[in-house]
Structures are given as C-alpha cells and as structure tokens.
C-alpha cells in the first residue's frame, strides 16, 4: 500500500426480515448518514462513493447504483459499483480503500446492501437452465454436499456445525443490530429444527435479512481530522487482498479453495501476520452455514488442515467460553444476512472492535482483527486486516 488509510466512520441498519418502512434508497441512506455522523462529516465532504450488492436479479433492480446516486449524495461525483456475489461487501470496502491508499481521494463513502424482502434469492439462485438439472434449492443445496465432503475428509463429529449455530446466536444476543435474537438457543433446539439440506438443519443456516452497511474510508489526514472532531479513533487498514478462481475445473478443492489460501497468504504478508491464531485478537468471517467455521479456520491458516473442528469443539472461537480467538462476535452471517451487506458487515465489525466501539460484544483490548468474505460457489474471496495502531 502507498498512503495510509483507515476506517473513520461506521453505520449499519438493524437487520430485519422486512423493512417495510423504507425503499432500497431509504435503507442505504440510513446506513450512510450514520457513518457520516460517526466521522463528523456530511455528504459534501465525500469525494467518491463505492456501492456493492449481490446479483441484481435478487431484487430485480438492474444497476441500482444509478438510481441510488441521489440518496447517497453521489450526484456529480465518481461512483463505482462492485460485483463479487456474496463476498461483495468485502470487495466493495477494499475498492473504496484502494481509492484512498492510491492517493486519489481523501474520503470515500462505501455502502453495501440487500433488501431480501423485495426479492426472492432462493428463486434467483435456482432458475431452470437447459444445461443443468433444477435441483439446487438455493445456496444450501449447493454448499451441503461440500460440507459433507469436509465431514468425510476431516472425520469431524456431526455436532460441530450445531455448536457453531449455537455459539454465533449466543454472540448475536450481545449485538443490537443482529437480525436473530434467540435467547433459548441450544444444541437440542438446533438438532430438533427441520433438516433442510441434509446434513444442514434449518438453524444451521443464515436468515434472510434486509439491511445496509456503510463505512467512510479516510486518508491519514482525514483520520486525524475525524479523531480531533469526534474524539473517536480510526481503525487502520494493514492489508487488503482479493482472489478468485473458476467455479469449475478438474481437481478443484471446494472444501479448502486455493483462492482463499492464496488470498490469506497475500494478506498476511502485507500485514506481517505469521501465526493468525496468535496474531489476531478476533475475526469476523463469512459463515452462512455453520460448517463453514471449521472449514475457514483451516483455509485461513488458524490450524492445520483437518483440525478446524477441534478448535470449534474446544470453544476457541467462542466469546462466551472465553476462547482465545473469538470468531463472529457480532453473531455473524448466521444471525444476519442482508447478502450484499454481509461481507461489509464482517469488515465493519473488525473496525468496530479495534476502535473499541463494539459495545456488549467487544473483545477486551482488541488491537488487530481479520475480516473475511467469500461468495458465489466459493470462488470469490476478500479479506482485510485492521488494527488500532498505525501501520
């Protein structure tokens, strides 16, 4: 990276199954205004806007960034749209940060959203096409066979996924912005929920949410100004990486994708991470289906391949159990899934943590955190490292 850059403002809507009181424009503006207030700025101070969301087919609004320009104060300013399926919120934040790191802009607003109540994602992911069988039944139908392959390869016990499902919902109880608040959540409750895509129970899958996330990425100068205006510290960006791989090629390892491993290696090199489990104080990682926690623990190098489930089983990723590397303290994607925003929420939550502003789900003295998002058929990866200290 050339210029130092930091997250200086954060905004997110409360995730809900239906926001009937606002349109998409109202939803994104709510998050954007919150982020501006946090940074002590107004729309006039923003140099450029970067917008991300999952496929346009979900809500059926094509190129919604054009219609959202006015609501996001982007009229007459550079505006960018990012497309990387479910990882898009993460990629969008990275594109925004590149515009500052490159020295082009001082303050960039980045926003990601999904209004699932305006859409039918299950349908959009299962459209009949002549070259495939109409079997998919949404994202769960795509990922469940990969999860089964992971279970077979690693020898993980069947309850590891259920344990993640409980842990992330217990974390969500500490986050007022989370969609699902299930105070009675238990292993039995997960086990008793309907088996939607065997081996995945209903409660091992993410909900369908309306929500938006926004951040202001600022230069070193903009960060100093924001701190002096608001008294709130920035979250410094220490590294950012994106990788992708084809969805179909002979010998592709979808359980532990190479693009994810390469992305992490690049990120860790930039941020000087040698032992992720020891070097990070917490992580927010895209886990839309419970078993993706142990799978990504391995993919991100927190343990050896085949050992991810052992960390989960030991409570290493649980705030409640006092684990050494808490994952998804916000409740994660399992507790809120406004798809396009879900990746940005991971990145945003890491910034909240290192700024010490995460409230009840704050990890004590969190200094350095990892944000990760993946998307599509596990072919897009976006990651960043933020810290309390300047790089």
């Amino acid at each position, binding site marked *: 990276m050339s210029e130092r850059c930091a997250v200086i403002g954060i905004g997110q809507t409360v995730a809900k199954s239906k926001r009937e009181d606002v349109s998409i424009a109202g939803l994104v503006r709510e998050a954007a205004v919150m982020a501006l207030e946090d940074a002590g700025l107004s729309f006039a101070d923003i140099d450029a806007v970067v917008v991300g969301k999952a496929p346009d087919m979900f809500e059926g609004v094509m190129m919604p960034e054009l219609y959202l320009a006015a609501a996001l104060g982007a009229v007459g300013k550079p505006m960018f749209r990012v497309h990387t399926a479910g990882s898009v919120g993460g990629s969008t934040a990275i594109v925004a940060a590149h515009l500052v790191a490159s020295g082009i802009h001082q303050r960039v607003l980045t926003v990601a959203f999904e209004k699932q109540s305006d859409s039918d994602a299950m349908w959009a992911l299962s459209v009949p096409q002549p070259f495939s069988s109409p079997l998919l039944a*949404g994202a769960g139908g795509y990922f469940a*066979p990969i999860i*089964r392959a992971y279970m077979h390869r690693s020898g993980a016990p069947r309850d590891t996924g259920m344990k993640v499902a409980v842990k992330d919902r217990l974390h969500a109880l500490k986050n007022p912005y989370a969609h699902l608040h299930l105070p009675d959540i238990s292993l039995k409750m997960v086990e008793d929920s309907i088996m939607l895509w065997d081996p995945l129970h209903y409660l091992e899958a993410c909900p369908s949410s309306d929500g938006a996330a926004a951040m202001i990425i600022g230069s070193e100068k903009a960060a100093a100004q924001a701190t002096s205006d608001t008294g709130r510290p920035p979250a410094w960006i220490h590294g950012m990486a994106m990788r992708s791989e084809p969805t179909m090629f*002979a010998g592709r390892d979808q359980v532990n994708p190479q693009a994810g491993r390469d992305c992490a290696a690049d990120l860790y090199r930039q941020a000087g991470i040698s032992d992720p489990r020891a070097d990070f104080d917490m992580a927010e990682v895209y886990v839309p289906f419970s078993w993706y926690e142990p799978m990504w623990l391995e993919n991100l190098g927190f343990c050896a391949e085949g050992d991810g489930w052992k960390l989960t089983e030991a409570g290493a990723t649980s705030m409640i159990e006092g684990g050494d590397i808490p994952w998804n303290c916000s409740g994660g994607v399992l507790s809120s899934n406004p798809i396009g925003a879900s990746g940005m929420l991971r990145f945003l939550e890491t910034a909240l943590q290192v700024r010490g502003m995460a409230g009840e789900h704050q990890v004590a003295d969190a200094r350095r955190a990892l944000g990760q998002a993946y998307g599509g058929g596990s072919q897009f990866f976006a990651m960043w490292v933020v810290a309390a200290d300047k790089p």
Partner: protein
Amino acid sequence: MTEPVTMMAATTRLDYVFTAGVAQSKNLHGLEEGKFIGQRCPKCKKVYTLSRGSCPVDGLPTDEIVELPNTGTVTTYCVVNVPFAGQSIEIPYICAQILLDGANLSFMGLIQEIPIDQIRMGLRVEAVWVEPDELGPTMASVKYFRPSGEPDAEFDSYKEYL
C-alpha cells in the same frame, strides 16, 4: 382514516431466449440423442462434462469430443427437504454430485430408486433417460440416476472430484 399505502407487491415475468454457443450446443445435441458428451483439453487431457468449450486451467479450447458412458459415481450429495418456488421434484430428494466414468468434472444430478437413508458417497449409478420421443436438447432428457448395482467406488478414486 384508512392507513396510507406504503408498499405494494407487483409480480413480473421475463421471457428470454437462451443462446447456447458452440460448445454447449454439442453437449445439448448429445443429450437430444440420449448421450453424454465430454470435451478433452489438449494439454492436461482432462475431460470436461457439460463443457463450456475451454479448459479453465489451461485456457485452451477443448476441441476433442469424447462420448461418455451412462455410468458414474456419487462423489458427494445432500438430501433436499426445502420447498421453493418453481420446484418440480417432490421433497425430500437426493441431489448428488455425479462423476461419469472417464470424466474429470462432476455435475449435479437427481438420484432415485434408492431409499434416502441408503444414499452414500461412492455409490455407483447409471442414468435413466426419458422415452426416445421425449428426448430434447436439455438436461431434462435425463430423468434421474439410479444405483447400477456395482460395488461402491473407493474414496481415493473420486476424492479429487467432490
């Protein structure tokens, strides 16, 4: 006073023409004849099923056509028990990744004629086609796959194709 209208639901429809292109046309015409067509990469020699005409690893056209057999192996699977709009199969059903013999890429297929609790990784299966006069240029020409009766495949034989 009546409540103000703040939202309305309007359903829409969209018809579209699908242009298959050169490579997929070969696959779709194969299905029309009740055959699976594969395409081999000239460099890595891998055989792609339902190929899009190039090898994603080598970036080369997969010009060599390979006719594939009716039999294959279930590499992994899930049991779908979720209803969704436009669904045409009764739930619960088995959705499996099937690796045809001689192919290097699996694809998703429906498994029937086996009790759901007996489905397993490594199961050997064969395609059941629709009646000859119902064959068309679509995967719908394959009704489903069913157990072929052969012994299960060893994990090592398909572990790269999960």
